[in-house]
Structures are given as C-alpha cells and as structure tokens.
C-alpha cells in the first residue's frame, strides 16, 4: 500500500499553466509531508524577511559609490511589533530624525529614500543593484539628487515627509514589500511629485515586484525614470499620471 497517493499524470502536466500548488497528491486526505514542508519553508522565508533588519553598515558603505551623503533615520515606530500594529507611527519620523534633517534646506530635484518596510531583506539584497542603474540615469538627465536617507521601521508615506524636509521636488522611496510565499525580496518604488506630509496613495505612483526574478533592475529603472520624467513634465503624480500607464507596458 502506497502511503502517498499521487495526482494523475494529466493533472501534474497542468502545472505548466499555473504556479498554484495543484496536483500535490495526498496522504490520506491530507497534504503529503514533502509538500507541507515546502510550504513551511516558503512561509519561514517570508517570516524571516518581515523581521529582518537593514544592514546599515554594509548599505552605508556600498552607497559611498554614489558620492552622496547618507543619512540614517528612524520612524516613530520603536520596534517591529509596534510597527506592525501602528502603521500611523511608521509613516512619521521620530523627533531625533526630524532634528537631523532640520538644516538640510538646499533645493533638490529628487530625494531617494530607502526604507525597510515589510522586508529589509529586499533592501539588503536588491537596492544597491537597482541604484547602480537608476542613479546614473537620473544624473544623465541633469537631475539634482538630495542626500540619500536610510530609514528604519518606515512605511511608504514617510518618504514624503523626508523629501519635503530635504526640500526636494520629488520623493522616491524604495521600500521592502510585504513578502509573498514565492518571493520575500521584492522592492516597491513609490514616487510623489511635490511631496508634503499627509498625502495618501492617490498622490503616488508605484512600481512593484523589483527583484532579479521579478522586474529586473534595468526594467524597473526604466519605468521609474519614465515616471520621473513625466512627473516633472506634467508637474503631478498619482492617479492622473497613472492614466498614461499604457506607456509603461513591458
């Protein structure tokens, strides 16, 4: 008697058409252990990513290549458990960070903000690779970049507060996305034209799933650059800019 009952060959063949966990067979009526452990491992990667931390030392070191000052900031969320329960805290800088930015009043075009979000793993693994393509592109278009900021326990909206304090015309926040079972290392990029604290999602444009096995650094950089140019040309971002999203096709 076989312990695991496999799905029919024809069903297994259908795995070609979907990444869904179909045709995994059964042990009795339950999921076979091998599949169960594979699921657990995927979930473990996602959980580890949620609790991962920015490698500030390594990132600061690697960011030196862009010849920009790197500022280290922190949101009002003191620790991860609080961050998860109080999204409002993650959207605002703590007092020390606000003071830290107080004397940065020189006008800039773009502030690049790097935040852990829900996966510091995504930032630790992928942000340098993305910036190595993106920053030269932005500079070649004559855009002036503000100091780079590294933010712990940050949510998307914190980018607008920071860019506003840095006197930048546009905020570009690169942030770790909520890990899925298939990917724990995706970066999301959100940009806001004329950023001020208190703006909501409809004021922003988003490019999602930036990672080597998703949207590549090159593709992502191209899309971000397109949106940046359009935002500066039309002096807006968000829903109205999204109307032209067809131009962003692969």
């Amino acid at each position, binding site marked *: 008697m076989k312990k695991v009952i496999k799905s029919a060959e024809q069903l297994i063949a259908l795995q070609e058409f*979907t990444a869904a966990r*179909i045709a995994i067979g059964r042990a009795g009526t339950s999921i076979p252990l091998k599949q169960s452990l594979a699921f657990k491992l995927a*979930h473990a990667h996602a959980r580890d990513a949620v609790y991962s931390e920015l490698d500030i030392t390594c990132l600061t070191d690697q960011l030196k290549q862009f010849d920009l000052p790197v500022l280290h900031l922190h949101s009002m969320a003191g620790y991860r458990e609080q961050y998860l329960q109080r999204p409002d805290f993650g959207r605002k800088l703590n007092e020390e960070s606000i003071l830290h930015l107080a004397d940065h009043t020189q006008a800039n075009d773009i502030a690049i903000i790097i935040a852990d979000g829900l996966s510091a793993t995504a930032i630790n693994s992928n942000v340098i690779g993305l910036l190595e393509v993106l920053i030269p592109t932005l500079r070649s278009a004559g855009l002036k970049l503000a100091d780079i900021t590294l933010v712990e326990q940050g949510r998307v909206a914190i980018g607008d507060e920071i860019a506003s304090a840095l006197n930048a015309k546009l905020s570009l926040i690169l942030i770790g996305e*909520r*890990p899925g079972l298939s990917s724990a290392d995706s970066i999301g990029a959100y940009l806001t034209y004329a950023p001020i604290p208190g703006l909501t999602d409809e004021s922003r444009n988003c490019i999602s799933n930036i990672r080597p096995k998703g949207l590549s650094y090159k593709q992502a950089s191209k899309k971000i650059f397109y949106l940046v140019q359009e935002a500066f040309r039309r002096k807006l971002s968000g829903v109205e800019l999204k109307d032209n999203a067809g131009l962003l096709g692969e």
Partner: protein
Amino acid sequence: MYRHTIKSKVYQFADLKDLLAKASPCRSGDELAGVCAATYEERVAAQITLADVPLKTFLNEVVIPYEKDEITRLIIDTHNTEAFEPISHLTVGDFCDWLLSDHTTTETLQQISAGITPEMAAAVSKLMRNQDLIAVAKKCEVVTRFRNTIGLTGHFSTRLQPNHPTDNPKGVAASIIDGLLYGSGDAVIGINPATDSPAAVANLLNLIDTLRQQFDIPTQSCVLSHITTTIQLINEGAPVDLCFQSIAGTEKTNSSFGIDMALLDEAYAATLSLNRGTVGNNVMYFETGQGSSLSANANFGVDQQTCEARAYAVARKYNPLLVNTVVGFIGPEYLYDGKQIIRAALEDHFCGKLLGLSMGVDVCYTNHAEADQDDMDNLLTLLGVAGCSFIMGVPGSDDIMLNYQSTSFHDALYLRKVLGLRPAPEFELWLMKQGIIDDKGNLLSVNAAHGLLGGKG
C-alpha cells in the same frame, strides 16, 4: 452616559458606541482606532455594564446617526417588532443566557432572527466566550439554494477559489479541475479576477459555465468583479449565476467601495431576473471583514466588530446564497495574531448566523501577521464544530493572485473526515456519479480516463 464602579473606581462610558468599543475583546484595530479599553479592568467593567443594558435601548440609541447613514436607517426602519417580542424584555446579559438555554432551539432562533439588530448581536457576542459563540452558532441553521442546497445541518461546503495572477484561462481551469477532484466547489466556483475589465470577467464566466454545463455540475459560478461590472455583464447576456460585492457596515465605507444600497437593489433585481437557479433563487454573494471601515477612515468611532455586524444588515436585505468574512486578509494592524483572528472569525460567524445569514469564513492570514498553519487548523476545526456553512478551497493553501494563505482542498477533506460532515447533497451525488468519492464519502483516485482529465470517461 453609562457607568460602573469597581472598588471605588468609577468607569464612565460616554454612550452606547463607547460602551460597545470598550467591551470588545482586545484587537489591534480597535487600538489603532483609539476606541478600545485602556486596561483589562476597564474592559470587564464595560462588559458588566453592557450586560445590564436592555435590548430595547438598541432601538432608541444608535451608534451612527440615523440622518447620516443609510445602514442605520435600514436597521431601524426594517426592524421586525413581532420577531423581537419574545426577547424584548431582556437585557444583553439575559439575552446571552437565553441564547445558551436548552429551551432556545434552532426553531426559536429562526423565529427571532429578524428581531435582532446587528448591534444587539455584536453586544451579546462581546460578552460570550469562544465556546459560547460556537454553541449558539451551532444551533442556528440557515439554508440557502441556487443549484444546490447550502447550510443543512451535518453538511459543509467549499468555495473553489482557482485564482491566477494573470487570469490565464488554462491556469484557472487547471486549479478548478484539481479542486473538483478533491471534492471542492459546492458553495461556488469563485474567481477573484486580476483585472476588473468586463471582457476579461466575461471570459472567466464563460470558462466556468462551459465546464459546468459539460459535466452537469450542480454548483454555481461567480467572478468577483465590482457590482457595476456585473450589472453591465448581465445586460450584455453573460452567464452570471451569482452577483458578488464587498460590503461594509457604514454608508461611508460602502461609498469608498463605490456602492450604495440603491446600486445593490439594482444588481439584485437584475441578477434575480436571470432566473438561473434550479433549486432556489438566492443569487447574491457578499464578502465582509472586520477593519474595513477603519481602513476607509469611515468607522465614526465604532469598534470594528460592531461595524462588521452592521454589514450583515445590508447582506440580509438581499437573501444571499453566501456571505464570507475574509477574516485574516486585512493584516496585523487590525487583527494582530492567531488569537485575534480566531476570535474575530468566531464572532463574525456567530453574528452572521444569528442574523440569518448563510455564513462562511475565509480562514486566512498574511505573512506579516503573527499566525501560521497551526492557527488556521485550530480555527478551521472550531468553525467545523460551530456549523460554519463553507470555507475556501485554494490549491495548497497558497493564493498566488491575492498573495495570502487560505484553506486548501485538503483542509476541507480533513474537516469532513474528523467531524463526519458531508458536501451539499446535490453536489455529493454528483461526486459519487463522477467516481470522485464513494458512497461513504471517501475520496477515490481517478484514473487517466476520467472526463475531467480529458479522457473519454
């Protein structure tokens, strides 16, 4: 103003809304909203105070003003005083004991259902332990019909959820066939589309309808598009079985979803007119979930569980085939961990059933919640004991389109096995005829010649 004194400490609660919020078992969403009790003692003080509030008070004191909210108007204007009569003399605390009493039977609960307002249901649920929520829900029987019969005691159904990130027809079909071979899909075969474009939704509707007709499956289909898209598709002659919509318990939240009751009336009438049901005509499928009102900044200081119960007033106006609380999808800022998700699911299931709804639960969590498969196993089992009408069936628990974890096809089989539950009767008969289960309900292995695998049968 409500008050209670514990050891010379006087607790005051500004109004019924405040009292309900402070009496609510702890959850992150109410903390985020700033409406929850500040201490353990205050919470129990609120519960003791709430227990003494007469049910009649709920007909005179509303949590969101009548003039400002069409759901408040619906609750007050359609309150059935005749059904309310047998419980009209009770306080919330009396009501709790009354619900648990052996003299209160399935029939009694069915008779008074229309006399209970959502706020009364929410209030009593806040005083109940998990086992009370289970014991009373178990006594409720809500039966609905379309092409099969959902909610009969001893039966337990599943929504087959074959989502695909790009709506690829072959990918969707593969998940449907996989699910059917595990005996899933009697509540509905329901797809969350990746886009809301009418043409894409119509393609998916046609895909399921063709399969259903080819194999003569006694179930119903649904593509969970926005209600305006569904109305358009009905007008264009697409094969719409069930009309779907996400709903919530405040007018302002529903407005953020792009709906109001006039639009729901229109969609309900349009779907009924198609007359596609064979054994009944419950044509609506609603989804809800605690936290949606706060998320839309439209909770008016009302706690998230009371907001959720108010959504059921909207649902019951339209005699839905299915109502699904998508409990763990919203994330840890509303329901932090397994304990809070489990509690919320049992509350929603209890309140829904008490108010007369065919209640199912999406037993689910996201990767940033403090929850895992063990928590979901616990909840799944508790819901099975409580007589939950249906859960989801997702290949391997992993929804690759919505990026969250729900229940697998296997989970439903486990529950049926350990609790002796059976699929909807019409669907069960079909599964036997197809050779998917035997006459005792045991799953069989189908061979390559099976029609669903492209064989000639």
